[in-house]
């Protein structure tokens, strides 16, 4: 974690040379982008082998982002759950409030190294947009962020932040006017301006090499966890790791350093998907539990799509999980049993958000609250000998207004203040 000549990024056995994790992943994009993806892949591999790049990234992660983030024993939550110890990997402590900044800084550095002066990004809740705008400001790059009209309405403060940081926020009015369509627009911009533009993709989705590259940039989370847990518990791996998945970048960041260990050294890896109003309701964003294999945004993955291949709009209380697909590496983990994926509803997430806030004084992002809910259930199942690490992917500031609205709808009669867990 400290600066030294031996700073590296991890190398994993997946994907294969064609960008496939098993049958998932690949490059389903217009031919116009293929040379750019080849160029990106080559530039990334060169940067990954260049000590100067790695040391600059390491320096920024420490001095600008504030890494390492703490691995914090949630004592009162542990007592409440009455079972395994629950540790929180505090990505909410990062500058800009979530894990997104790890990847954005790295990609922006790469953009600069490639001589690209213009970066584009897509955003739903705004976390990736703010992180991209921040990295662009720091490195002096022109930044354009695509955001759906509906999300612009819901996340006005983040829109202002991006503009204050000097980014241009472009409103997307096509399709569902949310993250899915913002991503389409970002890809269209890239197809059009590919010669001088770098696309900072926000999750472990998209065409190869993005899922692998974003994973590598986020795996600092899991690598730190190994070292920190060794110091705290005398072993690098807990019994289980729980993380929320939309596209899946925070989850892959903490899973990947463990996922390729031999089975007997590997903790249970559990991704919590947004089940919205329930997987059977049709109003959810649970791509593993409720989707089928398909192709979106350049990659083969589990996808919410109907019997004729039209994308079904997702729903989640948490804008950051509100995506109809899930990264190809997660799909492969699911299919091969390396990780499990469990659906958590809006109501359960909201309950867990209040629980963590009251017991630990930490207001988590609604995304992360999905993981907290499951960790409490799992702690009971594992018993007092167990150790769980939850990736607390981000803080809840961005969600406070929405949570206030939902709780007032839910508890109109002065019952606010009770913890229901």
């Amino acid at each position: 974690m400290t600066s030294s000549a031996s700073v590296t990024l991890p190398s994993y056995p997946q994907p294969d040379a064609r960008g496939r994790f098993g049958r998932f992943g690949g490059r389903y994009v217009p031919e116009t982008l293929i040379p750019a993806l080849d160029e990106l892949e080559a530039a990334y591999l060169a940067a990954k082998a260049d000590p100067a790049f790695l040391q600059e990234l390491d320096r920024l992660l420490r001095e600008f982002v504030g890494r390492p983030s703490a691995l914090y024993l949630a004592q009162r939550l542990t007592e409440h759950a009455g079972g395994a110890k629950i540790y929180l990997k505090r990505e909410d402590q990062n500058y800009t409030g979530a894990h997104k900044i790890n990847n954005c800084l790295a990609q922006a550095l790469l953009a600069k190294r490639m001589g690209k002066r213009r970066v584009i990004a897509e955003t739903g809740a705004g976390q990736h947009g703010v992180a991209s705008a921040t990295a662009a400001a720091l490195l002096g790059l022109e930044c354009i962020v695509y955001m759906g009209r509906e999300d612009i309405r819901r996340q006005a403060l983040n829109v202002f932040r991006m503009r204050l940081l000097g980014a241009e926020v472009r409103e997307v009015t096509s399709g569902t006017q949310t993250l899915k369509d913002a991503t389409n627009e970002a890809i269209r911009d890239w197809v059009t301006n590919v010669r001088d533009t770098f696309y900072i993709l926000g999750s472990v989705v998209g065409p190869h090499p993005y899922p692998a590259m974003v994973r590598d940039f986020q795996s600092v989370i899991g690598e730190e966890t190994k070292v920190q847990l060794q110091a705290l518990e005398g072993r690098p791996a807990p019994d289980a790791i729980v993380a929320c998945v939309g596209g899946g970048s925070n989850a892959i960041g903490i899973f990947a350093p463990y996922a390729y260990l031999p089975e007997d050294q590997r903790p249970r890896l559990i991704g919590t998907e947004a089940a919205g109003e329930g997987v059977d309701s049709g109003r959810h964003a649970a791509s593993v539990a409720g989707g089928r294999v398909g192709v979106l945004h350049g990659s083969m993955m589990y996808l919410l799509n109907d019997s004729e291949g039209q994308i079904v709009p997702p729903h989640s209380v948490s804008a950051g999980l509100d995506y109809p697909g899930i990264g190809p590496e997660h799909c492969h983990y699911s299919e091969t049993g390396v990780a499990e994926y469990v659906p958590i509803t809006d109501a359960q997430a909201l309950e867990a958000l209040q629980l963590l806030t009251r017991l630990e004084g930490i207001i988590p992002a609604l995304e992360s609250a999905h993981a907290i809910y499951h960790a409490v259930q799992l702690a009971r199942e594992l018993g007092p000998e167990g150790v769980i690490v939850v990736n607390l992917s981000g803080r809840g500031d961005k969600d406070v207004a929405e949570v206030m609205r939902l709780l007032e709808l839910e508890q109109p009669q002065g019952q606010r203040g009770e913890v229901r867990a």
Partner: protein
Amino acid sequence: MTATLTRGAERIHAAFARAGAEGRAAFIPFMTAGYPTAEGFPAVADALLEQADLLEVGIPYSDPLGDGPTIQRASEQALAGGTSTRRTLALVRDLRARHDTPLVIMTYVNPIYAVGPREFMRLAAEAGVDGLILPDLPPDQDLEIADLAAEHGLAVTFLIAPTSTPERVKLVAEACTGFLYAVSVTGVTGAREGTALAEVPAMLALAREHARVPVAVGFGVKDAATARQVAAVADGVVVGSAFINAVREGQDVGALAAEIARGCRK
């Protein structure tokens, strides 16, 4: 691949050959199936088929990331009206009953995977489709789709772009069995202000070194003048968004098609 041409490939090549013999580039209009409505589509298609050497019919798709706003909005409208993969194939079957002109389907890969590649090819062949254009499928991504298409008598068309390296041009050109589709500009579909066809001749020269099929150019061709520029160097001219704009604005699509078709004369 040249040894055994599929039925679709033969019909497509013959259409290009007929146009060539008349001193023209083949005129290939595009229309989104079910646009402006499922009921209104056949009349629009008929008007285009009066002039067309081939007709390109798009399966409306919710996330057409290679298309610009014109085709995307047309797709949204067609989907809202209930047109999807199977309905598109029904519309094509209806056209096939009335016209002998080759019909090619433009589709993103997800609708093919959702129906199942084998089932999709069977349904397409049954409907009388001659070929497929696959804008988000570089040929090295999925070798099964081209094989299944061939098994069902269909030709496939892949795309090259101004950014394509010589290696990519070779790979794509060799994979095409219908015609090769050269994208004229770095960008998505759509009629544009001005013309930016500067990169086309060099790209086509490279493509012709490897292609065993006719080479057509599309994206940004919007009127007789741009069609004439393209026809000077290509075997075929694809025009899409301009016709959708015409339908939306209530213009005479047949008249516009006739004018652009005249622009395709060498």
